[in-house]
């Protein structure tokens, strides 16, 4: 576990950067827009640097640090102002906050930059809870919901409690606990491609546990877990689908109909 001791949080800022992540960019852009909507509704000006691509995690976790460094470095110059960098993904936030400094350990100048950037990185649910201190008004119909927390959010960022805290602000949401809740969904980035049989077994067990709660939908703050679980459920012909925490919160609190 990386996040030892309580993190000190700043006052609510006037402006933030949003780092959308490559998976959200291509596969769940709605989640990125809803993260922006939630932040703007709190009176925060959101800047989305147009040159952002990816945090570099896929190469880092696959054993290609040179390529991870190159991609990470391409993000360094995109956040020149001292504003917080909000990331709607626990694993990408974890990479930027905890792995950037060690990625550049051979270069003190770059490592100092990496540390300075890492200091400003917040996972979305963490930022909404601890910095914005958001108060949500539930406008949705009663709904039974399960929550899957990504391993990076739980063990690197220590933000598993924040997603739960946000959902608990919604009186219409009946939050179900699923079996082996802290267990990995089996995504693991390239693990899902390298070890498809093991990955599928893990994903299968996770969707079984989610289904067993009788929840009508499930929430995750990580697009990787959502893709893994939703496509597994689709292949099985199940109706149950998960959604990103940002989208769920925005829909529940903005009076929009649930998808």
């Amino acid at each position, binding site marked *: 576990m990386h996040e030892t001791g309580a993190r000190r949080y700043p006052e609510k800022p006037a402006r933030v950067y949003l780092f959308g992540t490559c998976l959200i960019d291509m596969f769940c852009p709605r989640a990125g827009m809803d993260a922006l909507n939630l932040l703007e509704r709190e009176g925060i000006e959101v800047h989305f640097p147009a040159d952002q691509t990816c945090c570099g995690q896929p190469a880092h976790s696959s054993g290609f640090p040179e390529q991870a460094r190159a991609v990470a470095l391409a993000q360094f110059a995109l956040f020149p102002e001292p504003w917080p960098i909000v990331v709607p993904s626990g694993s990408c936030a974890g990479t930027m906050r905890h792995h950037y400094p060690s990625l550049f350990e051979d270069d003190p100048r770059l490592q100092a930059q990496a540390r300075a950037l890492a200091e400003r990185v917040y996972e979305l649910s963490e930022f909404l809870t601890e910095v914005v201190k958001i108060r949500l008004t539930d406008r949705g119909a009663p709904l039974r919901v399960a929550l899957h927390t990504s391993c990076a959010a739980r063990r690197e960022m220590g933000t598993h409690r924040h997603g739960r805290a946000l959902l608990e602000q919604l009186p219409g949401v009946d939050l179900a606990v699923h079996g082996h809740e802290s267990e990995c969904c089996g995504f693991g980035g390239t693990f899902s491609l390298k070890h498809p*049989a093991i990955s599928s077994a893990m994903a299968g067990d996770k969707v079984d546990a989610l289904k067993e709660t009788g929840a009508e939908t499930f929430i995750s703050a990580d697009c990787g877990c959502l893709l893994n679980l939703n496509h597994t459920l689709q292949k099985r012909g199940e109706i149950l689908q998960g959604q990103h925490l940002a989208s769920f919160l925005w829909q529940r609190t903005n009076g929009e109909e649930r998808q």
Partner: protein
Amino acid sequence: MSAPALHELQFVPASEFKRRSATAVDDAHLRQSFRGAMDFLIGKRAAQFPDPAALERQRALAEQIRQYSLARLPDLLEQLERTLTDNGVNVHWAENAEDANRIIIDIAQRHATRLMVKGKSMVSEEVELNHALAAVGIEALESDMGEYIVQLDGEKPSHIIMPAIHKTKQQIARLFADKVPGVAYTESVDELIGIGRAVLREKFMSAEIGLSGVNFAVAETGTLCLVENEGNGRMCTTVPDVHIAITGIEKVVEKLEHVPPLFGLLTRSATGQAITTYFNLITGPRRPGEKDGPREMHLVLVDNGRTQAYRDQQLRSTLQCIRCGACMNHCPVYTRIGGHAYGTTYPGPIGEIVSPHMLGLNATHVLPTASTLCGACGEVCPVKIPIPELLVRLRVEGQHDAHPGRPPLRGQGAAKSALVDAVWAGWAALYTRPALYRAFGWLATRFRALTPSQQAGWTFSRTPMKPAARTLHEMMAARRRR
């Protein structure tokens, strides 16, 4: 009474890991039995650590003790050799498995040994001692109940603490009825244990040599600590005339006072016990006037690749391990595939980080990839080994030549492939060029209907991934224009 089947060499090359793990996940019985057993152990451990803050303090202390010991490893090993020698123990150094087996066979042959009874020792599994002994006509009999069961069935342990955890009561009942003469089929656990006990009691008395592992070796006092529950460890180390202990060079600590914090975490993390039934402190053979204990004692200190881990500042933390098995109990991959699929003596997360040093990356480079990096192992490790970080490091070493100025690991770069290198080079080229990246996103979304329906391992059990209609970049750009 015929002897149990000799332990057959069943080491399967780790390169077959993918095939074996795929077979294992399809075995509903295996899945169910490991899930049940791991849940039980996870629950037992959790009950021992009700206060997270107290556990953190204990882990920090244990980590400190292990790091302190490893920082002084060469000195402590020399000190251990001196104190043990003063206590009347013969100390042997084995650089590899062959050395260890040769040393033990020499001792056994000097004593015209026909039977060696063994307490539980993973290092003896690591060096394939039983197989080496069988080759020279010496019977090795496992006396730990779990080890006895897997030996009887010609298998290898599937867990470092609970070797027969993959077996059901019914399978053990069938095994005993088939292999132990004069035994009727019974599913009563008490009766099954009674059968094993009866066989073993007789053997303890007739064995020329008892062999055991070591949990901690104390340099200052020359004491070998042995943690066990069944009393078979005490029998092996006290009844036969000769006792041979075998252990890895990393097990040494400086002072006796360093043992209790490690011992307390070991038993709680492993089996959820506050303390084991037996804790043996062995400080030399029988002394004049004493009525029991071995007349001759040996310690075999095995390197077998540990020095490679020791030499590297980051990889050295691998050697902090006290072999509790908590990492495998909490590992979602181990829980799905069981211990045998790994094909190595040490399965699960600890096996993935220690086996490359023992067997080389050429045989084991796939093992560090068999993890989602979920971090459950590192979270429960009582000595705070950063297992996920070591897995990533070993992935790097498997994919690349040695870093300039660092000695290569055995089998360094064994996973290298021109295709994979090209994929990551292309990936980096795309993700370091924002305009190109946006153009790629534009194309992928416009032509999303052409997305392949077969996507490598992904579509094994999932529908294909398909880009959204528009990227977030485009949605943000459209918003700016409004």
